[in-house]
């Protein structure tokens, strides 16, 4: 009797989460393709996400730090210098957009100038200007308004918002951030399209199976469910593996010298490390939708 193996099969059919899964062929190139497409695109998406987050962070830092510091230089005869500096500090206190203002000490000034003037220059003896470091709030200072007020109250003050230095840096940083988001968008789009096409191709390869099932009395919902479950699972697994490998690679990239502070390392920070977990979810959602649509489209052509 060959019954035993047959019975085992029947039992296998009953076990797990329902019979429907077994009616979908488990392997084949289109299955591999779905897995790989989901995996590879998830891997790239993690990279793109890391890139855009890192550059976003960089852009924030540059814009913030550069945009939010300014300098007020007060040149005046020695006897008026202190008075004007005090007036300027008072004026800044009542200016909207100023987060803090601080007189730069003589020592700091000396340190800044040493590379140019050498350590031996007697700065104290010179009529050098007073410098006030201004930190702006996120809203920023109305530079023209401030200059007008300064012209009246502190005639010796020159306000420098570092625009000359800032503009290209901020532009560059924003550009990097934009490119990062663009890549992420592109790659997510390609991932979606790829999964959709792979699911459609796999479903087309299974058109016969669907037809056979429909002709022996399977309901649409049963057939669609079997395929949707299988393909969503494939996309989810593929994308999860890809995203995990991507995250691992990002984590293993030698971290940049953050002390240099100029460009942070590629990577996520804090809760950002959870972001890659979103990618398999997106992949699974796309696969769910794509398979459902393709399955129902195939079924619509059958009576």
């Amino acid at each position: 009797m060959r019954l035993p193996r047959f019975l085992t099969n029947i039992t296998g059919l009953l076990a797990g989460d329902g019979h429907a899964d077994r009616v979908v062929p488990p392997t084949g190139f289109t299955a591999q393709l779905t897995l790989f497409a989901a995996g590879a695109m998830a891997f790239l998406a993690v990279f793109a996400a890391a890139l855009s987050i890192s550059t976003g962070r960089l852009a924030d830092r540059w814009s913030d730090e550069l945009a939010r510091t300014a300098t007020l230089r007060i040149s005046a005869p020695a006897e008026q210098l202190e008075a004007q500096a005090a007036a300027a500090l008072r004026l800044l206190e009542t200016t909207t957009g100023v987060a803090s203002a601080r007189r730069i000490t003589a020592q700091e000034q000396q340190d800044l100038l040493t590379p140019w003037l050498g350590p031996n220059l007697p700065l104290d003896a010179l009529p050098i200007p007073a410098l006030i470091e201004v930190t702006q709030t996120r809203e920023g200072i109305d530079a023209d308004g401030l200059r007008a007020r300064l012209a009246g109250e502190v005639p010796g003050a020159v306000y420098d918002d570092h625009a000359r230095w800032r503009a290209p840096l901020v532009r560059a940083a924003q550009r990097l951030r934009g490119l990062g988001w663009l890549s992420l968008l592109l790659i997510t789009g390609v991932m979606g399209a790829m999964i959709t096409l792979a699911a459609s191709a796999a479903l087309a390869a299974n058109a016969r199976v669907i037809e056979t099932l429909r002709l022996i009395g399977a309901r649409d919902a049963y057939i669609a469910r079997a395929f949707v479950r299988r393909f969503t699972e494939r996309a989810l697994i593929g994308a999860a593996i890809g995203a995990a490998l991507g995250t691992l690679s990002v984590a293993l990239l030698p971290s940049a010298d953050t002390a240099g502070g100029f460009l942070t390392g590629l990577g996520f920070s804090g809760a950002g490390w959870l972001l890659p977990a979103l990618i398999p979810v997106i992949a699974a959602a796309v696969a769910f939708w794509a398979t459902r649509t393709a399955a129902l489209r195939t079924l619509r052509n059958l009576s």
Partner: protein
Amino acid sequence: MACDCTAPQCQAHKGGKTQTGQAVIELENVSYSYGGGELLSDISLRLMPGSFHFLTGPSGAGKTTFLKLCYMELMPTSGQLRVFEKPVGKMTRDDVANGRRRIGVVHQDCQFLNHLPVAENIALPLTVSGRDPAGEAANIMELIQWVGLANHADVLPPQLSGGERQRAALARAVVMSPEVVLADEPTGNVDWDMSQRLLQLLIELNKMGKTIVIATHDLNLIRAAKAQVAARVLRIANRRLQLAGADL
């Protein structure tokens, strides 16, 4: 009355067996065309429960097309088709699926799920209709033995010979004990002895009150059946369905 053809000779034929109730499949002036000219024109027929019909006609006449209408793979281009007393035009897709569970079909090109063993393929109609094949394993095995596939229960369908495929298809068609069995050339690839066994299976079912329609070119098969049941022969030719009786 088992048959209700429009053909004049039809009225002469009465069922050999008492048949009551409504027709399981009823065609009323049904026509069908694949897009070109009409392939089937103005066909009327009532298939009564417990009747046994053969369907003949030249190759390309429309036998397969006729059967596809009966199990709702195709919809009439005109006329009224009722399956289990329900007009097919008013059926939802789930109605169609449920209707098919009451009709066993042997397709001319037997399609299986190539990744499942033969036994599971034969049990598939149970599976997709939510019934538990394990509970009926003994019956299924008996059926598999009857069609001579006991040694092939756990191989995959691509490893079957042509005749073995037909037998597996027949087994799958009858595994649910359906009210109607439509068999399209079920013995084209099997030897005479095996075709008698398969015929026996269908005759057994017919005796249980099931409706049987067999499309075939094999006149010997028809003669053998007529010796055992009150089988009638329908013939499709020139787009029409006729009852061909006396000439066999």
